[in-house]
């Protein structure tokens, strides 16, 4: 018993540490890549190639004054950053990041918790993240924040449907809800589910961007209209929490995407963990690339796109896949 507790808590600690570092370096990567795409150089001062920049940022944000505006609802306002951050972290518990290894004569699974309903768990948990944004928008006592919150709840609900449906295709093909089994089914490149679910993959990618509030779907923030939206009134670490939440979310959907469509940690020569990280950051690169390229949708266009394009396509994909699987 003690053994299981020990192993589990160790695994959780390692995963958390890895994800938090990943978040920090995702910001570094974003700044560097966007800078390069825009004829700039990005951070260079902190450490070699600016590699210590995320740490410098964190230190700065921790020492910033924590300003609490008078009109906020204290409790919900304080909770909101946590609510948006924690669900993003929880996703990683069920994502496998390597093959089983043997350590001290014991078989250890390289996954936080091998749930047999992994995908359902992910869907359930990622949906919770929106509460953080809604609560933040509502409790800030600012009209800009409120609009950001309302926009984001509408957007999340719309895109959650497409997100879920795009995954169902894979589940139908694989006939399992466990992420570990999903990965095992995609042993070689030819077995990757992206070949069997190309439309599903595109839908997943699109909905995932909307899920994580990234450009071109960054309605809730829309700094040129809403001056930051739901996090306008936040400062210091509370503000940082939202951003860590956003990056953790990006990493989460990237990790899930890599697992569902690109064979997760499977790959030749390199160790599985490296393959996993590579695939995740490939997704991240794609997001960053999009951000540097596209303008933002307008709110009504975003909703129309979600319900009139993505939703029917996702339904179609599900039905066709189901029919093919039946045959």
């Amino acid at each position, binding site marked *: 018993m003690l053994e299981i507790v020990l192993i589990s808590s160790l695994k959780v600690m390692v995963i958390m540490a890895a994800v938090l570092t990943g978040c920090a370096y995702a910001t570094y990567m974003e700044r560097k890549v966007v800078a390069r*795409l825009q*004829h700039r150089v990005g951070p260079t001062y902190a450490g070699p190639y600016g590699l210590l920049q995320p740490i410098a940022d964190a230190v700065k944000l921790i020492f910033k004054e924590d300003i609490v505006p008078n009109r906020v609802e204290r409790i919900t306002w304080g909770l909101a950053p946590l609510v948006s951050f924690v669900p993003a972290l929880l996703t990683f518990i069920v994502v496998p990041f390597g093959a089983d290894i043997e350590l001290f004569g014991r078989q250890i699974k390289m996954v936080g918790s091998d749930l047999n309903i992994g995908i359902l768990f992910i869907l359930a948990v990622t949906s919770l993240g929106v509460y953080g944004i809604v609560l933040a928008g509502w409790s800030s006592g600012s009209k800009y924040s409120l609009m950001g919150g309302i926009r984001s709840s509408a957007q999340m609900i719309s895109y959650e449907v497409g997100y879920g449906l795009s995954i169902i295709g894979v589940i139908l093909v694989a006939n399992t809800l466990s992420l570990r089994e999903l990965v095992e089914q995609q042993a070689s490149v030819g077995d990757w589910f992206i070949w069997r679910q190309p439309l599903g993959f595109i839908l997943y990618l699109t909905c995932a961007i909307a899920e994580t509030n990234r450009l071109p779907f960054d309605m809730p923030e829309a*700094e040129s209209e809403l001056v930051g939206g739901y996090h306008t009134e936040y400062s210091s670490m509370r503000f940082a929490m939202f951003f860590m939440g956003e990056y953790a979310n990006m990493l989460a959907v990237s990790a899930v995407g890599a697992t569902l469509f690109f064979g997760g940690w499977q790959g030749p020569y390199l160790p599985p963990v490296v393959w996993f990280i590579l695939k995740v950051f490939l997704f991240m690169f794609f997001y960053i690339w999009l951000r540097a390229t*596209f303008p*933002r949708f*307008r709110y009504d*266009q975003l909703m129309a796109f979600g319900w009139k394009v993505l939703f029917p396509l996702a339904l179609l994909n599900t039905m066709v896949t189901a029919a093919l699987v039946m045959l």
Partner: protein
Amino acid sequence: MPEQRTVTLNMGPQHPSTHGVLRVVVELDGERVVKVTPVVGYLHTGIEKTMESKLYYQALVCTDRMDYLAPMSNNLGYCLAVEKLMDIEVPEKVQWARVCLAELTRIKSHLVWLGTHSIDLGAMSMLLYTFRDRESIIDVYEACGGQRMMTSYIRIGGLAHELPVDFDKKVRRVVKQVNEGLADYENLLTNNEIFINRTRNVAVISAEDAIAWSLSGPMLRGSGVKHDLRKANPYSGYENFDFEIAYGKNGDAYDRYLLRLKEIRQSLRIINQALDGMPEGPYRARVPGVVLPPKEDVLYKMESMIFHFKIITEGFKAPVGSVYQAIESPKGEFGFLITGDGSNRPRRVRVRPPSFINLASLPRLVEGGMFSDVVCAIGSIDIVLGEVDR
């Protein structure tokens, strides 16, 4: 008490996309805009009044600070007005150089517009690209007048100095760079579905309305009215150049975007012609007692030295009378009404500010639209608060 169904949102004066300190009071019904009231005056510096207390040549520096994104255009407008009042003929070379610089300024102003408008719509890379190209134009400014923004290079009766020796080479490099840049911008935006969605049929104004609201510049031509002062009422030798007026059709933000890109291309055309045909000659008119004599004369000739001293210390006296001279600045009709009263200071200086008048049409452009369109419309009008508030 009636039930309140709308939310009043105060946008600005500190807001990322009001292009300065414009304040817009927006009444919203959900995401829909019911009423929009632009509030101006946060950057009022009394430039017109200040100019009235300055000598004619001193007042010039105030003009840079109005539309600070197009300083050379403002200089040109003011100098042309004073030259009209004083009845000064400038040498041909000055005219060509002024046209060249004014068109460079148009490109520079349009590049800033393109960058800020795109970042308002969320396309953030555009800002960096356009500013990269704008930088090369500023380098030309620096080579000419020593200043990068507040140039005051175009002076009454000519230019401040001779054009720099490598002017031709520098400007040709700018032309090349902007040409290459334009291809990038078109790739990124012109056929971009999201960009088209955001700007097509947004902030629409019909040709009749545009005339009725006395709009000018791209705002007017975007609606299909072919009116450009460079053609309609040529100044500074624009009649010698071969170029076309760009105009739109629907009067929406997308048309104005296409139009401004076309204008940049036409400006490049004019600049090429100006460089090819740049005549030789003095860089200043010779009008004793009004325009500064050449520096070498000041050093060796008694009369020149006296004139130089007198112009610097007490300026020149302008005749009694009013003149109005308008130019086609990047933002529209930029006019100066100058009234002389026989003294060495203008009695009255009144500016016709294009972006102030264009801004007045904002409620008409966005009422009934979505909240995000307000940002798009403000960007599309292309305002500079320095000029709106003066």
